[in-house]
């Protein structure tokens, strides 16, 4: 018996397939469709998010047509209008921005920038995308159920969200809630991956305080999302039960259209707390990756280290923590106990301090830099302008008493579009122009990029700046039309028409962007491995685009932070993170820094 065990131990089965072969995908299907490679998953996430985002863009045109030219388009009834605004908002915030920043950029950049071969749970990462895709399909399907999608506003406030009198109460609202629940399930699978990868899979030398700010932003945003999404999840489950099974979590005694409903004893404000406990961190779930990415864009293209790196990291962490105790600033006039206003106004204005520090450090990074006005840099500068603009209007709305006249006016619409619509999208565009060469090995066309930039930036600014002033006037948001209101002058209608025209032009500019992407993928100028002469690890891969496993034979070793630009003694004006210290004064050659894997070489 003892001998038999001994025999077992001695027995080593022959390797039928080489170890590396097991690691690499073998069929077209596992390489490009059911891929476990974070980079492929990133591109799947990005394409899906951008596709659904285009749907939301078209919805915004429809609503702008109604606002700009009321009583002109017979196919936009009040019900349609409310469905358009609801789906536009929800898609843009959740299915485009959250998915694109975390599922798209997170997947692509985390392993590459921390020096990992992949996410730590590749199979779960793949599943994350497919559940996300299912969530998107359920959302799209809600357009085709009887009664159409929900028109309850993107905040989905009960009781109206599930009652007759609101579009989509028949089925659309349940589809929306199911889709959100699926999204959260899918996100959680990806999110755990991002967090564990950052914490556990960094390469040798990549300490937390050497990580690029992009990774800090995405990491912290993911932590926020993992903590915040459960609140939305339970809210969605409870509202689904209210809608389908007649429970009364959010439903008090109601007499609607002269009929007594069966609900009793629930609290509509409870839903608002759950929604905003998620909803406010959600703002930073979108903003923090944008903060991180834009820091890197500014640094690389201004050829200067980011100013005040440690404070930038702490600002991200502090903003993340504070974002969990500000949520009720969305509810100053919700009918909650008004004394809460003191607390939430104070926390909200305090969060402005670390946010302002980030702005100062971005502009101080430009100081004594050597600024190259590449397309990514243009978008980064536009981000600062729009973010500062949208940030300071947040100081109006966060200061409880100022919010009283402004809440639910167009001022709010203008504020959050500027700060979490336009500003993060500037970063999305900048990031795509910046990393497209790594993803494809080709550069995007520059003149097309510049036209895209100026039309988008100036156009978006011209759309949202004047809308603030309609808010001051008292023009409400979520109004299908504004006729016969004594305090609204005719000029407000002219302004709405102007904004609609600009919105259509800005929308059209995005077609140019998509064309640029499609054309450059095939015909774009070859970029080489590191066209921006950047220091972070993703630019030092042996292949461009990086192969499966990212870094060839050996993982890179990191000797310094990601912002070694303008180092006084170095030969070049940038020193890659993985360049050994003894080579700083020699000419750099990317091929010396890492060796390709023979099998994967193309």
């Amino acid at each position, binding site marked *: 018996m003892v001998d038999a065990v001994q025999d077992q131990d001695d027995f080593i089965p022959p390797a039928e397939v080489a170890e590396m072969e097991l690691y690499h995908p073998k069929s077209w299907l596992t390489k490009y469709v059911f891929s476990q490679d974070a980079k492929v998953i990133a591109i799947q996430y990005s394409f899906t998010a951008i596709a659904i985002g285009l749907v939301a863009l078209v919805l915004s045109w429809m609503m702008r047509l109604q606002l700009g030219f009321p009583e002109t388009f017979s196919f936009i009834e*009040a019900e349609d209008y409310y469905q358009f605004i609801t789906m536009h908002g929800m898609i843009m915030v959740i299915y485009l921005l959250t998915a694109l920043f975390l599922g798209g950029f997170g997947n692509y950049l985390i392993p590459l920038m921390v020096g990992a071969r992949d996410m730590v749970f590749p199979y779960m990462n793949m599943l994350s995308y497919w559940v996300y895709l299912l969530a998107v399909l359920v959302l799209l399907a809600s357009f085709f159920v009887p009664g159409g999608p929900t028109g309850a506003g993107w905040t989905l*406030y009960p*009781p109206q969200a599930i009652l007759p*009198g609101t579009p989509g109460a028949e089925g659309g609202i349940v589809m929306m809630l199911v889709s959100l629940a699926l999204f959260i399930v899918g996100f959680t699978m990806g999110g755990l991956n991002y967090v564990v990868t950052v914490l556990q899979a960094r390469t040798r030398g990549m300490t937390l305080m050497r990580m690029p700010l992009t990774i800090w932003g995405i990491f912290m945003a993911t932590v926020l999302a993992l903590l915040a999404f459960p609140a939305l999840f339970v809210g969605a489950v409870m509202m689904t039960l209210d809608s389908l099974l007649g429970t009364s979590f959010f439903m*008090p*005694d*109601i*007499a609607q*259209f*002269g*009929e007594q409903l069966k609900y009793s*004893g629930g*609290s*509509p404000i409870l839903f608002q707390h759950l929604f905003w406990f998620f909803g406010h961190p959600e703002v930073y779930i979108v903003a923090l990756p944008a903060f991180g990415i834009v820091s890197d864009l500014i640094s690389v293209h*201004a050829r*200067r*280290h980011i100013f*005040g*790196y440690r404070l930038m990291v702490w600002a991200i962490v502090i903003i993340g923590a504070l974002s969990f105790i500000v949520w009720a600033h969305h509810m100053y*006039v919700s*009918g909650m106990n*008004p004394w809460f206003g003191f607390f939430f*106004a*104070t926390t909200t204005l*305090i969060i*402005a*301090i670390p946010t302002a*520090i980030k702005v100062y450090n971005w*502009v101080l990074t*430009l*100081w*004594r830099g*050597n*600024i190259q*006005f590449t397309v990514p840099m*243009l978008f980064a*500068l536009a981000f*600062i*302008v729009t973010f*500062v603009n949208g940030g300071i209007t947040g100081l*109006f709305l966060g*200061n*409880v*008493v100022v919010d*009283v*006249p402004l809440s*639910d006016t167009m001022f709010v619409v203008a504020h959050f579009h500027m700060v979490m619509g336009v500003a993060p999208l500037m970063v999305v565009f900048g990031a795509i122009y910046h990393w497209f060469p790594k993803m494809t090995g080709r550069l995007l066309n520059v003149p097309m990029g510049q036209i895209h930039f100026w039309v988008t930036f100036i156009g978006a600014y011209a759309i949202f*700046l*004047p809308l603030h*002033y309609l808010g*001051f*006037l*008292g023009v409400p948001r*979520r109004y*299908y039309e504004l006729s016969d209101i004594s*305090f609204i*002058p005719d000029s*407000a209608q002219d302004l709405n028409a102007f904004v609609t025209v600009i919105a259509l032009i800005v929308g059209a500019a995005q077609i140019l962007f998509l064309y640029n992407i499609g054309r450059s993928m095939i015909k774009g100028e070859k970029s080489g491995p590191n066209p921006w002469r950047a220091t972070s690890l993703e630019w030092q891969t042996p292949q461009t685009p990086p192969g499966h496993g990212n870094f060839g034979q050996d993982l890179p070793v990191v000797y310094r932070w990601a912002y070694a630009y*303008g*180092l006084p003694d170095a030969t070049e004006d940038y020193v890659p993170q993985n360049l050994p210290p003894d080579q700083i004064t020699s000419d750099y050659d990317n091929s010396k820094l890492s060796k390709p894997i023979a099998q994967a070489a193309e």
Partner: protein
Amino acid sequence: MFVAVMLILVAVGTVVFHIVSPWWWTPIASNWGYIDDTIILTFWITGAVFVAVILFMAYCCFRFRYKEGRRSEYEPENKKLEWWLTILTGIGVAGMLIPGLFVWNQFVTVPPGAAEIEIVGAQWQWSFRYPGKDGVLGTSNVRLINGDNPFGINPDDPNGRDDVLVEGDDLHLPIGGPIKFLLRSVDVLHDFYVPEFRAKMDMVPGTITYFWLTPTRSGTFDILCFELCGTGHYTMRGTVVVETKEVYEEWLGEQETFAQTMARAGSDPTRATNIALSGARTAAVDDRLAQ
């Protein structure tokens, strides 16, 4: 150069637009001028920061534009500068927050002796209830709502018998005295807002919310629903008439009380009946939606 010029144009253009914009506050008609003052203060502080940041960027973009062979300055941190910026920002933020909280304290503190008026929201119309001669509103319950008792007033509560009900007509307010609005919804969320008053609050079914103000200017103003309440949200409008105390009292005396309404309806107000609302109300709503 071009980028720097464009940034300056954005900063200057924003300020110019602010100055020439024809869209601005409606003339105020309540005591909440403090809110306007806080906003003006916020404008000055944040506007200065906005212009300063953009102009600084523009300067950097001009002065430090790319030159072949130039090295950027290597100064990763500057503790002193970072502390100063943090402290100055803190002062600026406190400068907005502290006055704001003082005004909020007034907003949440209803002055003693404020007259109480109830606003009732239902999809998609406003109704109003005055406390009558005893100065006290009777209790109410959504479950008591029926065709004869659309407000759901408790018929057993003697305080409610003399309450004055206004349905499908304007809200009248006396000028000069503080008024506490008690806000009630019977179905979904609504929000009672008159832009000239500057103050608003959501109406939440299942609870009674409130805010107070003193009308300071006579005139006729629009009431708008400011919380999405379904397809007819944008049609949920009303009118408020602010007038002198004498005119107001005269108008109030002409209105029907709850007891009179019930008597006219031919039902005993002490016996709650469960007749569904007549179709008239929903038909009226349908008419407005069809417009």
